[in-house]
């Protein structure tokens, strides 16, 4: 009898303490505040129907929240640049289960033919260095997929790289882009099918995190020279992006199961206690 009581009391204490502790978030610290920008990730919101891929000024873009990332001059390898025009970028994302679209919005006081924007992704499971996936010295890194848009081309290039001077335009072009400049700021929409047949492409699976980075060039001509071109650009390092998963209603099934188990546990404990006391 004594052992049974002891066991029962242990279970009650440990169960209650454990669940209360976890419930009030006792056992986990809040995530640390981001030191550099305000955002750490891009959320591609799920919508139904067609995406505003051809219209950077669509009201659909205005209706969703975005993320913002600071940008730095590219100093990692020559030719370096120490001051850049684009200091930060606002990023928004949408998808409809088939196609995904990413809007980048940034300040650039002049509209120039050489203005350009790019989004970079890690490809597959292998990690890559943010600077064009250049090879790491101690570990093998993976390749990157770069979506590049330039004002004068008016379209996107679907590119791959694994290290400096390896940037190539892919045989299979899957990316579209449209840019609109107004009042000192560019809005560029990149779009692509979430998944492609090309193993050089990033495959965007709703619900899964991918790594993303950004780059921008101010193509203004100063003293006859294009201000930013090639490796002279504004860059970000890796951030995270995820296409929102479809709502998962199975969660509520698990919640009901949890409720039922807890209530059943109570029922058994109280019944045993009542029996014990009447005995």
């Amino acid at each position, binding site marked *: 009898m004594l052992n049974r009581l002891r066991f029962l009391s242990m279970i009650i204490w440990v169960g209650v303490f454990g669940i209360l502790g976890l419930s009030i978030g006792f056992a986990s610290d809040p995530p640390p505040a981001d030191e550099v920008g305000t955002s750490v990730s891009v959320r591609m919101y799920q919508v139904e129907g067609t995406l505003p891929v051809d219209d950077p000024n669509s009201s659909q873009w205005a209706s969703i929240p975005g993320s913002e990332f600071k940008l730095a001059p590219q100093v990692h390898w020559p030719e370096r640049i120490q001051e850049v025009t684009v200091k930060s970028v606002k990023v928004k994302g949408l998808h409809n289960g088939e196609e995904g679209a990413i809007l980048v919005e940034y300040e650039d006081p002049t509209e120039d033919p050489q203005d350009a924007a790019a989004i970079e992704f890690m490809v597959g499971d292998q990690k890559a260095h943010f600077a064009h996936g250049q090879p*790491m010295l101690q570990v093998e890194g993976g390749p990157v997929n770069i979506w590049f848009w330039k004002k004068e081309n008016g379209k996107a290039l679907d590119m791959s790289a694994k290290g400096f001077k390896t940037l190539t335009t892919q045989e299979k072009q899957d990316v579209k882009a449209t840019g609109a400049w107004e009042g000192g700021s560019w809005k560029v929409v990149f779009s692509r099918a979430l998944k492609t047949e090309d193993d050089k492409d990033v495959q965007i699976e709703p619900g899964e995190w991918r790594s993303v980075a950004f780059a921008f060039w101010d193509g203004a001509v100063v003293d006859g020279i294009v201000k930013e071109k090639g490796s002279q650009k504004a860059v970000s390092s890796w951030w995270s992006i995820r296409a929102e998963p479809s709502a998962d209603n199975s969660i509520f099934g698990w919640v009901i199961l949890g409720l039922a188990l807890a209530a059943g546990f109570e029922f058994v404990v109280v019944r045993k206690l009542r029996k014990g006391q009447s005995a």
Partner: protein
Amino acid sequence: MKGPIASGATLLVLMFIFLKFVLPLVTAPLPASLIYLYLALTLSGIMIFGTMSASSLENLMGPIFRFLSGKGQSGVGQMARLAVLVLFPLLVGWQTYTRLAPSDLPPAENRTIHPAPPGEFVGLANPYQNNEANVNMGKGLYAAYCSPCHGANYDGKGTAAPGFNPPPANFSDPGTIAQLQESYLFWRIKKGGVGLPVEGMPWKSAMPRWEVELPDEFIWKIIMGEYDGAHQSPRTWEEED
């Protein structure tokens, strides 16, 4: 209210106050998970103490058992029991939900900020004499190659610094180069961001691989200039002995 339940509860609360508010006065704040672990250990202690004999067990658990069984209860006691019995499953349900609900937070990064260097960069001594000429040459090279990001004042606040993630190291902070040996700096400057091992993932460092552009002599002198300019000294093995 007296008895082992009240003293146990008091002990837990005091322990929490001590861990959460008193201890950080003398040392770094404890992570919440560690506080939780210590409280769980305290609770285990109370339980072991309370279940040592039949009478102590009755003192500790008797009131709780009577409360839960609900026999002979009325008024406030009855309401409280009902509240506990209803709230407990709800908490479990809520807990299940928060655990399963899709999170908007990206996976945590476990980036090691100062990973171990490769063997060939352990324990190298600076081959250049620490004299005024060498230090000044190092400071000049630092101004040309390093200060745009790491700052003219060695504080990580160069003109190009604001957009970087991770930010350029602040050498005047006692937690950076003062904790490292000269040979470690030699490795990080020479090999840069691409020299990082797998623990340094996700490889966001924009640190250039300076071996491609600068001779070793420049790198050793830059290290001298950095320590001198930041008013720090390299960590040495002798100090630790």
